[in-house]
C-alpha cells in the first residue's frame, strides 16, 4: 500500500469503499432509499477521481450537495427529528465525506466515523446475527485502518488478515473486562424510535377481527425460562390487559384499569390484601421483545412485583415506561389464588356489569331469561359453556359481523375464535347481571426442548373471560376451551382446519419438521445471547460482581471501575511512554538487553565499541563466556545488519537463556 506521500492508493480506497458498503448495508431499510443511491453515486464518483483522474468537486459543488441532502432529509422525514432522521443525517455525512477524501487524515476520520455508524446498526436489531454482523463491520473498518497505517512495502491480504485477527484477539480481554465492569446506566434520554407502528402485539382494545391479524404473525413475543418444570399448556395464561369497558363493538380498558396512561396507579399493597395465594410458587424469567407498549405478561397470580413494574387493579403488571428495548424480568406466581373473594365495591360491580343501552338486544333479553331460569351463577355459566361446546366451531375465518356483533355471533354465525368467544361470553354474563371482564394476553407457547424454555409467538395471542362469583372472587373462564379444547392444550395450530392453518403465521416452519427444529435451535442460541449478553444490565452486573467479590458497595464498584480503567489506560499508554526513546529496531533492543546483562557482571560496552570488539574484550576478560558471546554477536550481526528474521528469533531466544554470573 502506498503511504509514502500524502496520497491514498487505489487499493486502500477500494478497501475503504468495501468497508463502507459493509457498514451501511444493515441500515438500508432505516434510511431513505435515495440516500443509499447517493452513497453508490458518491462512491463511484470517488473511484472515478482515483482511477480516471476526475477532479475533486470544488467548494460550491460541495455546498450545493450538502444543501440538497439536507433539504431531501427534511422532506423525507417531514420535519420529524426522530432516531431515523438523525441516523440519516449521519449516514449522509459519512457518505459525502468520500468526495473530500484526499489525505490520509481524512481517511482516518472516515474510519472512525465508520466505527460510529457500525454502532448504530445495533439500534435497530440486537439479535445474534446483527451482533455478528456488527463484528464483521468492525473488523472490516479496522482492516482498512490497518492497511493505510501499516508499514511500508506491499502487504499481502493474508498477512493483513493475520494482523487484524491478532489485533482483535488482543482487544478481546479488554472488551470482556469493560463489558463486565463498566457501569450500566439506564437511558439518560430516550430517542423516539419511529418504529412502534410496525410492531405487532396485543393492543389496548379488542374489536372483532383484531386478533386475526396477530394470528398471522409468527413473530416472537417473548421467551420464558422456568425454575423447575414447565407447567402444562392449560395453565399458561399470560395475562396482560383487562378490558372492562364495552361500547357495543370494541372492548377496552376503563379509566380504572387503564395502564397505558398510568391511570391505574393503585398500589400493590391494597391488592395484596384482596389476593389470597396458594402455597405453591412458580418462578420464571420473561424476556420480552420490544412492544412499544408498557404492559408486561405474567401468569396469575404473582406474589412478587419486579422492580420498576406496577400492578393494575385487574391483576396485571405494567412497566413505568414503554418497552422499547428487550426487557427481562423475573416473576414468582401461584396458580391457586383468590382475587377479591370478599366482595366487590359498588363502583366495581357497576363497572363490570355495564353495557351500552342499545347494543345486542336479543342477547340481553335471552340473558335475563336464562338468569331467571338458572339456580345459580355457576349453573348459568355451565349452560352457556355447554351452548358453546354444542353449537360453535373454531375458525380463523369467521363471517363478517354487522351492527349487533354479539347477537349475530351468538345466535347466527356461531363461528369464530377467542376474541369472539370471550367478548360474547362476557357480554352475556354482564347482561345476566354477573360481573365479568375480558382478559387478553397469550396462551400456551412452544417448548424449546433443547434449552428448556418456552417461546411465545404472536399467534399464541388469546382472549378469555373472568367472571366474579360470590365467595370465589374473579374466576377465569375460557369459552374457547369449551369450543376447541385442543387450542388450549396443544396450541393454536392443532385446533384449526388445514385451510385455516395456512393463515397462521410461520406456516412454513410448522409444516416441515426439520426446518421447525432448526428454527428452535437457532432461537435457543438467540435466546441465550439475549439473556446473557444483551440482557446484561446493571442489576445483572451487580449480581455477577457480588457473586465474585462478595457484597459490593457503590463506592467499591466505582473504585474497581477506576482501577480497571487505569489498568487498561496504562496498558494502552505503555508503548507511548516508551516512545520517548528512539524507536529502536528489535535486534538492537535485544542487543541492549545483552549489554545490560553483561554490565551487571561489570563488563560495560563503550560508546563506540562495535559488537565484535566488545565480544573480543568480553572473551578476553571472561574466557568462560567466550563461546556464548561469539555466538550471540554473530547472531546479532546477522539479525541487525543482514536483516535475517531467523537470526533475530534465535538471538532473542539465546539472550533470554543467557545468564552470565560474576566470578
Amino acid at each position, binding site marked *: 500500500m502506498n503511504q509514502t506521500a500524502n496520497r491514498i492508493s487505489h487499493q486502500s480506497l477500494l478497501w475503504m469503499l468495501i468497508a463502507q458498503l459493509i457498514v451501511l448495508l444493515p441500515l438500508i431499510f432505516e434510511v431513505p432509499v435515495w440516500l443509499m443511491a447517493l452513497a453508490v453515486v458518491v462512491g463511484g464518483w470517488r473511484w472515478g477521481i482515483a482511477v480516471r483522474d476526475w477532479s475533486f468537486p470544488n467548494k460550491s459543488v460541495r455546498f450545493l450537495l450538502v444543501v440538497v441532502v439536507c433539504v431531501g432529509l427534511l422532506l423525507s422525514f417531514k420535519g420529524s427529528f426522530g432516531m431515523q432522521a438523525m441516523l440519516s443525517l449521519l449516514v449522509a455525512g459519512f457518505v459525502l465525506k468520500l468526495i473530500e477524501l484526499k489525505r490520509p487524515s481524512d481517511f482516518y476520520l472516515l474510519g472512525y466515523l465508520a466505527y460510529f455508524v457500525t454502532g448504530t446498526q445495533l439500534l435497530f436489531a440486537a439479535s445474534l446475527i446483527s451482533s455478528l454482523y456488527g463484528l464483521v463491520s468492525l473488523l472490516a473498518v479496522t482492516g482498512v485502518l490497518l492497511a493505510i497505517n501499516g508499514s511500508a512495502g506491499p502487504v499481502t491480504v493474508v498477512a493483513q488478515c493475520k494482523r487484524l485477527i491478532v489485533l482483535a484477539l488482543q482487544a478481546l480481554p479488554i472488551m470482556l473486562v469493560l463489558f463486565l465492569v463498566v457501569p450500566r446506566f439506564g437511558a439518560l434520554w430516550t430517542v423516539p424510535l419511529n418504529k412502534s407502528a410496525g410492531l405487532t402485539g396485543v393492543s389496548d382494545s379488542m374489536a372483532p377481527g383484531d386478533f386475526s391479524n396477530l394470528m398471522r404473525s409468527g413473530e416472537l413475543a417473548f421467551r420464558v425460562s422456568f425454575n423447575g418444570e414447565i407447567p402444562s399448556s392449560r395453565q399458561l395464561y399470560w395475562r396482560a390487559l383487562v378490558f372492562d369497558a364495552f361500547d357495543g363493538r370494541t372492548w377496552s380498558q376503563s379509566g380504572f384499569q387503564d395502564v397505558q396512561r398510568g391511570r391505574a396507579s393503585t398500589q400493590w399493597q391494597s391488592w395484596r390484601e384482596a389476593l389470597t395465594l396458594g402455597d405453591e410458587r412458580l418462578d420464571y424469567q420473561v424476556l420480552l421483545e420490544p412492544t412499544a407498549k408498557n404492559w408486561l405478561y405474567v401468569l396469575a397470580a404473582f406474589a412478587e412485583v419486579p422492580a420498576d413494574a406496577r400492578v393494575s387493579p385487574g391483576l396485571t403488571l405494567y412497566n413505568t415506561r414503554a418497552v422499547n428495548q428487550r426487557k427481562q424480568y423475573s416473576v414468582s406466581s401461584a396458580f391457586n389464588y383468590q382475587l377479591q373473594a370478599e366482595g366487590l365495591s359498588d363502583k366495581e360491580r357497576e363497572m363490570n356489569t355495564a353495557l351500552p343501552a342499545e347494543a345486542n338486544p336479543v342477547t340481553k333479553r335471552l340473558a335475563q331469561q336464562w338468569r331467571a331460569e338458572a339456580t345459580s351463577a355457576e349453573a348459568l355459566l355451565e349452560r352457556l359453556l355447554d351452548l358453546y361446546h354444542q353449537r360453535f366451531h373454531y375458525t380463523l375465518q369467521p363471517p363478517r359481523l354487522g351492527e349487533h356483533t354479539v347477537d349475530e355471533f351468538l345466535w347466527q354465525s356461531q363461528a369464530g375464535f377467542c376474541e369472539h368467544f370471550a367478548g360474547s361470553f362476557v357480554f352475556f354474563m354482564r347482561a345476566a347481571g354477573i360481573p365479568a371482564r375480558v382478559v387478553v394476553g397469550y396462551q400456551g407457547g412452544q417448548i424449546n426442548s433443547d434449552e428448556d424454555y418456552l417461546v411465545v409467538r404472536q399467534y399464541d395471542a388469546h382472549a378469555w373471560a373472568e367472571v366474579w362469583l360470590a365467595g370465589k372472587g374473579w374466576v377465569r373462564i375460557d369459552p374457547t376451551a369449551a369450543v376447541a379444547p385442543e387450542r388450549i392444550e396443544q396450541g393454536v395450530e392443532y385446533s384449526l382446519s388445514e385451510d385455516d392453518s395456512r393463515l397462521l403465521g410461520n406456516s412454513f416452519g410448522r409444516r416441515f419438521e426439520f426446518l421447525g427444529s432448526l428454527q428452535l435451535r437457532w432461537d435457543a442460541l438467540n435466546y441465550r445471547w439475549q439473556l446473557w449478553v444483551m440482557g446484561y444490565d446493571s442489576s445483572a452486573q451487580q449480581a455477577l460482581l457480588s457473586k465474585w467479590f462478595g457484597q459490593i458497595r457503590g463506592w467499591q464498584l466505582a473504585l474497581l471501575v477506576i482501577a480497571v480503567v487505569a489498568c487498561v489506560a496504562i496498558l494502552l499508554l505503555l508503548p507511548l511512554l516508551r516512545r520517548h526513546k528512539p524507536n529502536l529496531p528489535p535486534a538492537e533492543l535485544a542487543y541492549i538487553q545483552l549489554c545490560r546483562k553483561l554490565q551487571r557482571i561489570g563488563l560495560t560496552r563503550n560508546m563506540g565499541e*562495535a559488537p565484535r570488539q566488545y565480544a573480543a574484550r568480553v572473551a578476553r576478560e571472561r574466557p568462560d563466556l567466550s563461546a556464548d558471546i561469539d555466538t550471540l554477536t554473530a547472531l546479532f550481526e546477522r539479525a541487525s545488519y543482514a536483516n535475517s528474521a531467523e537470526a533475530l528469533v534465535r538471538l532473542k531466544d539465546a539472550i533470554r537463556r543467557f545468564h552470565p554470573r560474576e566470578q
Partner: protein
Amino acid sequence: MRDNISKACTEIGKVLLGKEHEVKLALACLLAGGHLLIEDLPGMGKTTLAHALAKVLGLDYQRVQFTSDMLPADIIGVSIFDANTSQFSFHSGPVFTQLLLADEINRTTPKTQSALLEAMEEQQVSIDGETRPLPQPFFVIATQNPESQMGTFALPESQLDRFLMRISLGYPSPEAERMIFSGGDPRQYIPTLSRCISAEQLIDLKRQIRTLTASDSLIDYLQRLVYATRFEQDFTHGLSPRGALALLQAAKAWAYVEGRDYVIPEDIQTVAPAVITHRVSGADVTGGSQRLIAELLERVDVVAGGTNS
C-alpha cells in the same frame, strides 16, 4: 571471485611485506570503483604498492612521474598537425589507460593536477572541444609526499575529494624489515606476480558490491557518524553527502573483501580513517585529523541507546 581477491592480497603481500591491512584497504578502494591516494614519505613502498596492484588486477597501466614543469598535455595528449594528410591527428597521452599511476602528484603545478580532475570524475577527457571517453575500468592510483616536504603543491580540496581513500603505509614492522634486508629490493619481484582478477571481473565486482545489504541499523550508525562530523565543534566542516556515500561504498567493498554479504559497523570503522580524513579537513594524514577520526569513532554509539551512560 572472493578467492581471487584473497589471492590478490597474498600476491601483493609478497612484495609489500607486513602491510596486509593497507593492501586490503587499497584493494577494497579499487573494488568500490574509487581512486586511491597513497601518501607517505619517500621510500615507504608507495610505488611498489601501486605497481603490484596494477599487476595483480591485470589492467593496462601507464605510469606518469609528475614534475613541476609538466603541462596538462603531457598527461592527456596533444593534437599534432600531420603535413602528409594536412590534418590534426590526436596523440593520446598516458591517461588513456585502465590504471594510471600518478607518481608524486603533488610535485606538479595545480594546473596540471586539475587536468586529472575531469578524467577522474567523468571518466573522459575533453581536448580541442572534443570529448574522448577513457577505457573501462579507469582507476587512478596516485602517490604523494607529505606536503611539508620541499617542492610540493598541496592538492586542492576538490581534487582530494575525488579520491575514495587516502592511505599511508607507515614503517614496516621489525620482522618485515628484516625480511626486506635479507631478500633485497622487493620491487624486483613485481614482474613475477601473477594476475588474479581480470578487468571484466572488476567491473562485475563493482556492481556486486553495490548490491550488498546495508541494513537500517547500519544506515542509522552511518548517519550518527556523519551528523557528528557536521554538528560537533571538533570539525571545521563536516562530511558532505558525497563523502558519506563514499564511506558507505567503501564499507561495502570492505565487507565484500572480508567475505560478507552485509555491512557491519566494523566495516565502517575500518575504512573511516582512510575515507574521511582527507574530506573533513585538509590536515595532514598523520596529524590531527586522524586523531579526530579515532575520537569520533569512539564517541559515536554503534548501537543506538545501547550503552548505559
